[in-house]
């Protein structure tokens, strides 16, 4: 996608990039997979490769088809068109119980009549593993998710976080080729969710297992995944590393769905190779952005600028491009960040965010202050759709 080497995007596990290797064989391949429910197209000709050892996230709002896509891989839905292969083998016609993938359900779906140990052993029993092997694997799993003392509890005697870990252990125990996680942390409270995100990531690294996570929570996807596929109405809007989809979104939809963004509708006036100049009534001195792709002069484009890349000035900076003038309409103090809502003369509100790097600020920005906003040309992204 939209690779921009000069901007040097991407931080996590930069050495791990099988998708960039043309000779690498994907573990899972969706080929133009389509699924319709009645008249509605839930998944629309999606093609997608997921590689061995990858932590892949399907991200999108509810109803975008991400869960359907996952359920087709697990075998609970049948594609109307297209093909899904796992390790080169076509999965068509293979029922869920014969597929070497396991799923962790959103509701956890722990068997209420079985103990924690029996829940974890369920998949191993189906594989007809000898008794002592099952017991050893259950112990290993209990240790892995730190539930050693709770083997004989029933699910209703566990806390939400413990249930989540049992569900995880149960899905991992039969050593599937791939683990599918359907909104795995949705039912946890915020603090526990954050901890568990990092735990999941560490666990995936340790096991070397391929994880596919479905989530509507962008933070969850950003923290855990190697790559994110942003979905919209049954289609893939963008695939990329978390930093790519955040810093180099390919559309207004992706820019807006992931994080906060300020969008300026503008007319392209000049394409000077690297630098693109645009005109917008909201920026009297014009707009400038660094963009490798060509954008036709005279066309309409959108300039996307993240709030944290907006600088707030109380004194007027020297005139020049990427300079906006406005009045502080609201201030949201979050502790680590402060968000300023700045009203432009045209009436639109722009977001600017500042990290509260020091405890005391010499000249704090106050309500109704007249302020100027500026941003660097390489902080802005030109979007054509």
């Amino acid at each position, binding site marked *: 996608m939209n690779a921009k080497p000069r901007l040097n995007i991407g931080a996590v596990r930069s050495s791990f990039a099988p998708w960039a290797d043309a000779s690498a064989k994907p573990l899972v391949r969706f080929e133009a997979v389509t699924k319709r429910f009645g008249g509605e197209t839930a998944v629309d000709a999606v093609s997608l490769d997921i590689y061995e050892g990858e932590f892949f996230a399907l991200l999108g709002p509810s109803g975008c088809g991400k869960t359907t896509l996952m359920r087709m891989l697990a075998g609970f839905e049948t594609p109307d068109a297209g093909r899904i292969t796992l390790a080169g083998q076509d999965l068509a016609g293979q029922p869920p*119980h014969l597929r070497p993938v*396991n799923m962790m359900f959103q509701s956890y779906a*722990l068997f209420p009549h079985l103990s924690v140990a029996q829940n974890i052993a*369920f998949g191993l029993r189906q594989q007809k593993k000898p008794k002592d092997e099952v017991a050893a694997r259950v112990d290993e799993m209990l240790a892995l998710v730190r539930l050693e003392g709770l083997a004989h509890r029933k699910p209703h005697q566990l806390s939400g976080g413990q249930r989540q870990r049992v569900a995880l252990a149960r899905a991992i125990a039969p050593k599937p080729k791939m683990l599918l996680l359907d909104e795995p942390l949705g039912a946890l409270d915020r603090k526990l969710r954050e901890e568990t995100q990092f735990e999941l990531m560490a666990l995936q690294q340790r096991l070397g297992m391929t994880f596919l996570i479905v989530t509507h929570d962008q933070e969850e996807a950003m923290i855990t995944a190697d790559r994110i596929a942003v979905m919209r109405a049954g289609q893939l809007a963008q695939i990329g590393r978390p930093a790519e989809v955040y810093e180099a979104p390919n559309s207004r939809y992706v820019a807006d769905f992931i994080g906060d963004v300020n969008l300026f509708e503008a007319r392209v006036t000049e394409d000077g190779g690297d630098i693109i100049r645009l005109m917008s009534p909201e920026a009297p001195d014009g707009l400038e952005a660094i963009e490798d792709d060509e954008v036709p002069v005279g066309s309409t484009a959108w300039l996307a600028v993240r709030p944290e890349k907006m600088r707030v000035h109380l004194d007027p900076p020297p005139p020049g491009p990427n300079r906006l003038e406005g009045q502080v309409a609201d201030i949201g103090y979050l502790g680590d960040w402060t968000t300023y809502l700045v009203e432009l003369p045209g009436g639109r509100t722009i977001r600017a965010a500042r990290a509260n790097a020091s405890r005391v600020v010499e000249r704090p920005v106050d309500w109704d202050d007249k302020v100027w906003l500026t941003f660097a040309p390489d902080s802005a992204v030109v979007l054509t759709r």
Partner: protein
Amino acid sequence: MRRGPSAFNIAAITLGMGFLYLPILLLVIYSFNASRLVTVWGGFSTRWYASLFQNEQLLAAAWVTLRVAFVSATLATVLGALAALGLVRAGRFRGRTLFSSMTYAPLVMPEVILGLSLLLLFVSVGLPRGFWTVTIAHTTLTLCYATVVVQARLVSFDEALEEAARDLGAPPWKAFVLVTLPNIAPAVAAAWMLAFTLSLDDLVIASFTSGPGATTLPIRIYSAVRLGVSPEINAISTLLIGLVATGVIAVYLLNMRRRTPGA
């Protein structure tokens, strides 16, 4: 603000309970009457219970009733559970609403009509009336009750549990046996109990569909009463009430139990 029930509440409850249980209470008391005259109290005695166990006609009727109730309750529970599964699991198929309302229709259908139509059916197919015709008729009667009870449990049963079992390598039938069945078992047991009790005390349908050699207890009691109330009838009725009450309480307890663990 208001503590405890008002005078009106107490009056309403007393009146309602009196209406419901005074006749039954009277019957139970008179079953321990020493006198042969049913309406005259002649002191406490259990002699009618003793003589009851010498009355072979009544004992035979009781035995028929128990067998009919057992077989019809079992059939109704199996069929009802299958109907409930179809209604809950099959999603929206053509005629689903029609099917589900048709399942419930016998709940409100007058028993006389049901009995009469079953009689017509048995006569037209040439089935001699006896044990099996009563049993089939009672299965028809209790099937819809069993369906309702099992369906109520299935609706709240998380289908993801069965999917999880299949995902972990269990074929569909095994997933049902290992996961779904244990979780709906209390409802299935409750459905059986309900069907059993309903069959036990049915008079109307049984009188249409039973034949010689398959006289059920309610029929026997009814015909005995027409010749005059005997204290023995009071005694057997008390036993019947005890059995039905036990069944109803068991259903209630089974329903309570399935609600407590909320995993």
